[in-house]
């Protein structure tokens, strides 16, 4: 793929990511150890080290629209083993956050993005997770009505899915946190 590097855009993007990450992109050796151990690398379109390099080179579009940032399961295998102590898992968080803030919707990994959104909505309104509602809203939003559903009856039978929610009583404080930090 061809990229024309625009120095100003490159710097803007790279420094936005660096400041949120509190880490330097240039630290990365590009040794690939992060990618070598990443459990979901097989599904990704760019390996974690490629994401780092492309961020450094200012390829914002490609990075923020990648599958990789949503497929990352935050297992921290990468950061733990990185010889330079680079925050690889952290950059995935930062890029998801930047993508979300820029209103970029993942074309291929929308479910992941939606799940996180629905989850936070659930926290916002209850202060805690009401699992039945979470699953229900998620399924509605993604239209994956039947996927996973066969598990539900048995889970209800086992007492795993509760029918009522346990709200935080000082729910205003939760709302304030969301307001202050969103």
């Amino acid at each position, binding site marked *: 793929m061809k990229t024309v590097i625009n120095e100003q855009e490159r710097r803007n993007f790279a420094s936005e990511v660096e400041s949120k990450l509190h880490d330097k992109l240039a630290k990365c050796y590009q040794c690939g150890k992060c990618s070598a151990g990443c459990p979901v690398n097989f599904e990704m379109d760019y390996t974690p080290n490629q994401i780092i390099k492309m961020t450094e080179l200012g390829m914002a579009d490609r990075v923020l629209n990648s599958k990789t940032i949503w497929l990352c399961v935050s297992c921290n295998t990468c950061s733990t083993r990185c010889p330079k102590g680079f925050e690889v898992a952290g950059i995935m968080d930062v890029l998801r956050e930047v993508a979300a803030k820029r209103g970029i919707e993942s074309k291929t990994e929308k479910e*992941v993005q939606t799940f996180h959104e629905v989850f936070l909505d659930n926290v916002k309104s209850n202060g805690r997770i009401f699992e039945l509602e979470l699953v229900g809203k998620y399924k509605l939003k993604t239209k994956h009505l039947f996927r996973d559903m066969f598990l539900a009856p048995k889970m209800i039978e*086992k007492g795993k899915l509760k029918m009522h929610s346990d709200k935080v009583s000082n729910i205003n404080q939760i709302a304030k946190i*969301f307001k202050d930090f969103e």
Partner: protein
Amino acid sequence: MKLAYYPGCSLKGTSFEYETSLLKILEALNIEVQEIPDWNCCGASAAHSLNHNLSVALPARNLAIAENNGFEEVLAPCAACSSRLKTAKHEMGSDDILKKRISDSLEMPYKNSLNISNMLEFLLNIAGKEKIKSLVKKPLSSLKVASYYGCLLVRPPKVMKFDDPDKPVSMDELVALTGAVPVDYSYKTECCGAINSLSKPDVVMALTGKILYDIKEHGADLVVVACPLCHSNLDVRQREIERKYAERIGLPVLFITELLGLAFGFSPEELAIGGHMVNADKILQKLSN
């Protein structure tokens, strides 16, 4: 020492077995805990995926409440919760501005003074090996047990500061205390894909399947975990994985507290072992023989 208890959402919902068994062994250990009043969700991975500051602020509320209630120590049995609490503490420790913003938002003073323990740390450091050993009434010597640590207990090490991130031993030590035989295998700290359990079930099944089949190959009778997310992938999804890969697994997955509970002589019912999706009768039978 006043010990705060942060159950988190899972222990009150899908993983009620964990809380049930935990309360049993706390009783046996004679350790008193108090639930953090009006605690809220730690934000799990959704918060840090979408909003870094929120991912610190949500757990911080719980820490602040505990701190202002005079606690010094928090037990967060859920590995994910303990990871979020520890991360929040770590972040606020290195970012005074964020700490101040959060404290202002909560309208609560906050010193960032609490010590946070996950389940294994609690058992090894606070309860103590000696005490646990002394409580074992029914050694589980007939069982071969694989400890599955996953990600959140040990990674990232600079935040968790607990056990070796690639060769952990703490859970195996606890298993050994029960008299059971710890089983070594390759994927102890491989990720099961937890956070995308609902959104990318195929990926998660591939990851979890790899772990379960490896454990099976190494001859374990069961798996123990200390994380509700791991538990739900290994236990709840096990049938589905067997179907997908057309190969039986049949590995009961117990919380470490349940295993200890059995060794302490509690009945499977007292420990809510019947709440699991994979039937544990086989191992219970092996024990009663």
